[in-house]
């Protein structure tokens, strides 16, 4: 195994621990928006699809890459949109409305 792979494994492990620590602190109140947000962030896979479609190496890779961009991009837009819509609805009673 090359050094690159080992580096990547370290990155994966550290990111896993960060994920656990950060997400553990998320209020149960926000578990639904959390899931739609991580969904949107996960759609960062679109970068891999963009390179694949854009490099235009074979017809197959371009077609699959293009479809992959569509799938991931709909998650990016839809995920951020609905997360923000949900979070806008969470209001506290403390600053009393008239």
């Amino acid at each position, binding site marked *: 195994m090359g050094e*690159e792979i080992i580096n*990547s494994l370290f*990155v*994966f492990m550290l*990111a*896993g621990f960060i*994920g656990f620590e*950060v*997400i553990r602190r*998320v209020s*149960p*109140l*926000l*578990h*639904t928006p*959390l*899931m*739609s*947000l*991580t*969904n949107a*962030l*996960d*759609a*960062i*896979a*679109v*970068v*891999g699809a*963009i*390179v*694949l*479609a*854009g490099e*235009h*190496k074979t017809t197959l890779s371009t077609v*699959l*890459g*293009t479809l*992959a961009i*569509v*799938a*991931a*991009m709909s*998650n*990016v837009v*839809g*995920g*951020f*949109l*609905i997360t*923000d*819509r*949900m979070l*806008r*609805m*969470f*209001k*506290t009673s*403390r600053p009393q409305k008239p």
Partner: protein
Amino acid sequence: MTPFASQTTIEIIYLIATALFILSLKWMSSPRTARHGVWAGEIGMVLAIAGTLLHHGIVDYRWVAIALVLGSIIGVPLGMVHMTAVPQRTALSHAFGALCVTLVGTAEFYLRTPTVPKFMMSVLSMEVILGSLTFTGSLMAAGKLQELLPQRPFTYKGQNIVNLSFLAVAIGLAVYLVFHPEQKILFPALVGIPLIFGVLMIIPIGGADMPTVISLLNSYAGLSAAAMGFVLDSKLLIIAGALDGSSGLILSVIMSKAMNRSFTNVLFGAFGQVQSSSGAATEEKTVRSATAEEAASILAAANKVVIVPGYGMAVAQAQHKVRELYDALTKRGVDVKFAIHPVAGRMPGHMNVLLAEADVPYDRLVDMEDINAELPQTDVALVIGANDVTNPAARTDAGSPIYGMPILDVDKARTVMVIKRGMSPGFAGIDNPLYYMDKTLMLFGDAKAFVGSIVRELSGGTHS
């Protein structure tokens, strides 16, 4: 050799995007900062996509541009769905994420075969297996949640053995391909078998188990993206995938704890079966029922009311009427809180979102542990469309299938009122002794209509 930006510049952009993603999740810890989290995520995403478009390897922007626009257009309606449809939307987006990963993995295999290093082929197999089973599994889950498919679990003898053998064949195939990556004729099976497994995996899952299953699928989608990061040697993807994977895993752990069950039990247990054996002999028991007028006068006389919402409230679309009830009682000086069980509804946090949409302030939504401490001092616990999460048999009856499951102790309140369509048992088919207690009043009717009539009684003529 790089027309737009050097590789280093792109990597630095990715680094910034990664930091923004972590901050984005960190800010989700509180409703006050959560919207900053969304903005951080959006900025990170735009940076990462822009940075990628500068990639020197990209020679043809036409398809990329068309796909980006098309995906965005599809994304808008997916982001605008009604709040009651959020569980199925979430399942659908897991499917899209997994589809993207599977397609990229497939393309990468055909670009690299016949010489694929062993480690590369291992992570590629993992990417494709997790991706394709998550794709069909999530579609199935979305279908069940949208009620296109029956929500009842479907089980047959030897089901687990059949399912597991599909998975075993897929893994065996992956191992073979690691050593013989030139056998590209086998690759379609590496995608196809997990696709079938994904369908079979969800068939025995009932609606009540959906919160756990959606979380688990979320975790798989994240892990497959992380595997894709290994294939493409992209730290950004590895990190985003790991964050999503751990998020899904934590939620699944919370959900299965809240049901007092293990993952394996959720995936291979098919809740429905367990019940049929127990509680067969039910003797005639009497319940007390009450009208909206009686319920309204009891509520109006209370000092402290706890409302327990469940999936039934979502089905009846009663959340706005419930808010009106909250307003009417609050105006009379009654202290009203909402008790939220972790698995109430069809996905983690489902009830919170529905009530927030109906403008119930979030500081009135209380977790199970905190509200259980308050229930013994509560005058009225009003259960709306919840059943198993209030079943005292989980505490007392060792023979009950849900024995040991943490519940909301509504039976400790001075008076319990349950709005229910009829006496049919809940989704899991378990009888609820709560309904036969002396302090319990059954309010028979549709949740939305019944809460509406209570509100009318409270605001109408009969002021006490």
